[in-house]
């Protein structure tokens, strides 16, 4: 039990550090910055209390916002993603049985299943992030384009992280 908490704290610190120190300083093609920190929320154990997931999402988003001085931006997008997560999990994998402390992963959900789960959450997060940031419907096409390209980068990084650092691939 304690083990899983420590593991998640370490993961939180590691992902936030990668985001702040490396990814936030990078601008692929001049303007694309991938977001890997949301993986912390994505792969929290299935049975985590839904309310706790919301609070953790709030804390994660706020941490990123403090370091980039973007008040509320990442917080609102991440909280929204955490809000969708339980419905998505039961919608996609309602028939599966999840053990205590089991995390979403390729082994449990299958390659296609996990990929679908990650893609939906990443796109929901990125789309709400860019929409809230721009708040200009004249630029709707730009928002879609940035969402699509950034999601591609984020999902690739998420998979690299999963293959390198998690055991239940």
């Amino acid at each position, binding site marked *: 039990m304690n083990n899983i908490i420590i593991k998640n704290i370490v993961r939180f610190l590691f992902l936030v550090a990668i985001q702040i120190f490396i990814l*936030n300083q990078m601008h692929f093609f*001049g303007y694309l910055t991938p977001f890997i920190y949301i993986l912390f929320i994505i792969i929290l154990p299935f049975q985590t209390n*839904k309310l706790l997931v919301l609070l953790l999402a709030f804390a994660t988003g706020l941490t990123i916002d403090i370091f980039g001085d973007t008040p509320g931006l990442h*917080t609102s997008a991440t909280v929204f993603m955490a*809000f969708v997560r339980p419905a998505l999990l039961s919608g996609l994998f309602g028939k599966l049985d999840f053990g205590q402390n089991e995390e979403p992963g390729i082994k449990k959900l299958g390659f296609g299943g996990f990929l679908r789960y990650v893609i939906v959450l990443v796109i929901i997060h990125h789309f709400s992030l860019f929409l809230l940031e721009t708040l200009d419907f004249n630029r709707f096409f730009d928002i879609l384009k940035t969402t699509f390209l950034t999601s591609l980068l984020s999902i690739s990084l998420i998979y690299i992280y999963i293959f390198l650092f998690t055991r239940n691939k």
Partner: protein
Amino acid sequence: MRNLFIFLWNNRFFSLFLVLEVIALSMLSTSYSYHRSLRFNLVNDASGSILGVYSNISDYFYLKKENQKLLNENAYLRNQMENAFLKTDTSAIFIDTLYKYIPARVISSTTNMQTNKIIVDKGKIHGIEKEMGVISDNGVVGIVVGVSNHYSTIMSALSKNANFSAMIKSNGQLVSVSWPGDDYLHGEINDIPSHIQLSEGDTIISSGNSIIFPKGLFLGTVVEHNQREDKDLSKAKIEFYVDFNNLHYVNIIKNLMKPELDSLIINANNE
């Protein structure tokens, strides 16, 4: 009342979501305007010092480039020194300092947002205040919007809410420079009267009409001007002088006359 609590408790997931989202969105609402971001920001010494440690390391990679930049700037400044001029005009003397420049190191910056922020390692104790101008090697970078004791955040010219008073160097026509929000290399000038001829490569400089920036700092050069017959005012695309994606050191401008000018404006408004 009791029913309300029961209802909220039964829908506690949704209620908590709403509460957290309202907190986040009310923070976010401050970032949609320049004046509101002056009032609320998250810059603080703790996050600043963590970012500072990292840029201490990464700065070594840019030393060569920065040296070259400094050399160029030194040469430019030498050219403006008193002894670089042939003294025929004896009426020009420097009476008092008007601007003081405070050098600062960039510890974090973005170019991919709609409101781009730069965090630097100088703050209140170094004399930085909100609404001071920021330049890098004679090019306009942005305006200070938040200060903590040791750090400050700058809203860069790459912000949809930022407008800079500028002028066309060749004819002194006043224009305003803004950023349309698509790429970090190019900005836009608006309100160009139809009789003004602009050609590619024309320089846009700060007008000196605001108390934030002195006159003559570079903003960019014109790359495209679409003049239209049916409109009185046209737009032009400019390339920014400053490379926002490659910014490591900046100077913050303190206008020593600002308190006096401010009280003058307040007095004028009161009367």
